[in-house]
């Protein structure tokens, strides 16, 4: 012993005496008492499950006397019938194979028939040569936890149901914003592609093709900023405004001017939403069609010509629709002859992310793709674009719409 201080042997000192006083009650504790009155149930069974030892805590939870259980009952006898099935098919085989098992949720049946949700851990004690001697099991009261888990499961099922309802609603609403099928235009082949980025939200892209007169057809394709219910309401307004305006005066510049006015008027109510759109009127003429087209800030359409060339079409028009008052739009006329294919699309197509760098697909790539397709037909162009976009997988992260028109070769 080196040194001599106040806490030297024989003199525990002031501090030591105080500590002893605090630990006094602990000295009263014993392993036996700890076993019997631990805040969890202890159970030892023979390898076949017969109860060999049980602590007072578990007896008080179950309402049995020691004599009723030890030597007479098996662990599985303490379980509910469903728990017994679970024990025999999952718990016991895994315990036998692994030597231990933990965190298993079971329900005990008390002497008066009540159910006690518990969490069970078991470990096999083996002899020196590896023979199983007994199974030690600790049992933790899990009433609160089980109630909480039930609530979690219930909430999750509820959320799943709500999500299904929402998706049904979205699908139904989406359908009302797109033509159920494209009309039959004599002398013209038409096809369309639509991709909604989310099953939980209505997309903001839209298109339509409809008869204006016997030999005249209106068409449009556009993109409302944003998505979801509010955007869907604006999309709906845009659709009926365009259709109604075209009946009154089918000049595309005038139609877009009318839409711009309507969007400006309801700008605040619409939450400041605007859109891009191209509106056109198709008139049968000779062996093809004349397409008069105006654009409100919309991406330039593509023409895949009969001679195998392809190019963006400069279309007169004006700025985004719904942003500035009193805009005057202009129209451009494009001639569609036999073998020509005309494509209107939204920027979901060109802004899709590609490759590992996740760069945008882009106008140049689209032009090169279109040049590779030309000459084409509406159906075949849509097939190719569908395959292209599906190949991008989750790179296609926005809504995308494509409307294709082609004049068959006679």
């Amino acid at each position: 012993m080196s040194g001599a201080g106040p806490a030297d042997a024989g003199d525990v000192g002031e501090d030591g005496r105080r500590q002893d006083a605090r630990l006094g009650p602990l000295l009263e504790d014993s392993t036996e008492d700890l076993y019997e009155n631990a805040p969890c149930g202890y159970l030892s069974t023979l390898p076949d499950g017969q109860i060999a030892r049980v602590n007072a805590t578990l007896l008080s939870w179950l309402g049995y006397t020691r004599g009723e259980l030890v030597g007479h009952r098996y662990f599985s006898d303490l379980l509910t019938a469903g728990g017994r099935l679970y024990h025999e098919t999952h718990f016991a085989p895994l315990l036998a194979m692994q030597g231990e098992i933990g965190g298993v949720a079971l329900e005990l049946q008390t002497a008066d028939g009540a159910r006690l949700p518990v969490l069970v851990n078991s470990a096999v004690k083996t002899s020196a040569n590896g023979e199983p001697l007994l199974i030690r099991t600790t049992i933790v009261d899990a009433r609160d936890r089980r109630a909480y888990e039930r609530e979690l499961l219930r909430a999750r099922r509820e959320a799943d149901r709500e999500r299904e309802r929402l998706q049904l609603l979205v699908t139904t609403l989406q359908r009302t914003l797109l033509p159920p099928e494209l009309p039959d235009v004599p002398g013209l082949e038409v096809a369309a592609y639509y991709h909604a980025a989310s099953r939980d939200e209505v997309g903001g892209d839209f298109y339509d093709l409809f008869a204006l007169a016997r030999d005249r057809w209106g068409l449009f394709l556009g993109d409302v900023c944003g998505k979801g219910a509010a955007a869907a309401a604006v999309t709906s307004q845009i659709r009926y405004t365009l259709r109604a305006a075209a009946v009154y005066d089918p000049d595309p510049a005038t139609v877009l001017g009318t839409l711009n006015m309507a969007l400006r008027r309801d700008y605040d109510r619409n939450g400041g939403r605007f859109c891009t759109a191209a509106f056109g009127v198709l008139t049968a003429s000779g062996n093809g069609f004349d397409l008069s087209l105006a654009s409100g800030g919309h991406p330039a359409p593509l023409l895949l010509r009969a001679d195998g060339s392809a190019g963006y079409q400069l279309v007169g028009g004006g700025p985004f629709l719904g942003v500035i008052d009193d805009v005057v739009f202009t129209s451009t006329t494009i001639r569609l002859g036999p073998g020509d294919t005309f494509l209107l699309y939204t920027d979901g197509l060109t802004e899709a992310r590609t490759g590992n760098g996740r760069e945008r697909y882009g106008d140049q790539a689209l032009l090169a793709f279109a040049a590779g397709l030309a000459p084409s037909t509406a159906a075949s162009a849509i097939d190719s674009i569908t395959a292209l976009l599906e190949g991008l997988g989750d790179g296609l992260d926005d809504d995308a719409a494509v409307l294709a028109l082609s004049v068959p070769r006679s």
Partner: protein
Amino acid sequence: MVAGPEDRPVVMLAHGFGCDQNLWRLVAPSLAEDFRVVLFDHVGAGRSDLSAWQPERYATLDGYADDVLRICRELELRQVVFVGHSVSAMIGVLAAIREPDRFSKLILVGPSPRYIDDDGYRGGFSRADIDDLLESLDSNYLGWSAAMAPVIMGNPERPELAEELADSFCRTDPAIARAFARTTFLSDNRADLAKVSVPTLILQCSRDAIAPAEVGAFVHAEIAGSALVTLPATGHCPQLSAPEATLAAIASFASGPP
């Protein structure tokens, strides 16, 4: 998995609800010394191809029996001694009724043709008990991977070993486990027993909470000419709790006179 000499009789081991072919691990290696042993996981269990699972196909035990016959055809197995544990006992019964020539013998370990009590018949369970089991499956499935496949051997030097084992023991997809539980415990194959024409051995455990002695006696009485052996084993899995006795009973019946 196929093990054992090619020229020996084929013994096909089929696991029941709740586990996979691992359940035979204490019995299969010794059996493979004298027999050609075929082990497999039912679709949805163990390492089976989960994408092959279809709710309609596996809504009845016929789908599982069909799989057994497919395996036999694929591996060109003949004179098969089929050993079916738990629900696989009835799967074997159905397979042997459909193609009796394929099988030389049936060994039914802890069989029950009907788990639910019914009009004078005592299966041991009620419909509510089965719902109770489904609830147990539900409340354990959040912790399924942790609780049902814990680290088996504390071997810090080789964590991948524990991982591999944890990965392979009785893994089940929770949704498939629910469906298999329904198919298993709501089936009624009592009427099929009398149609069995293959020599049959029933292995009964002395104390089995799932397939009690009186159910074993019922199966014995319904299958004409069947033999009943009661194993000194507690619980529903004698191949784990009494592997030697189980092995001896299987080997002696399989190699005995046809």
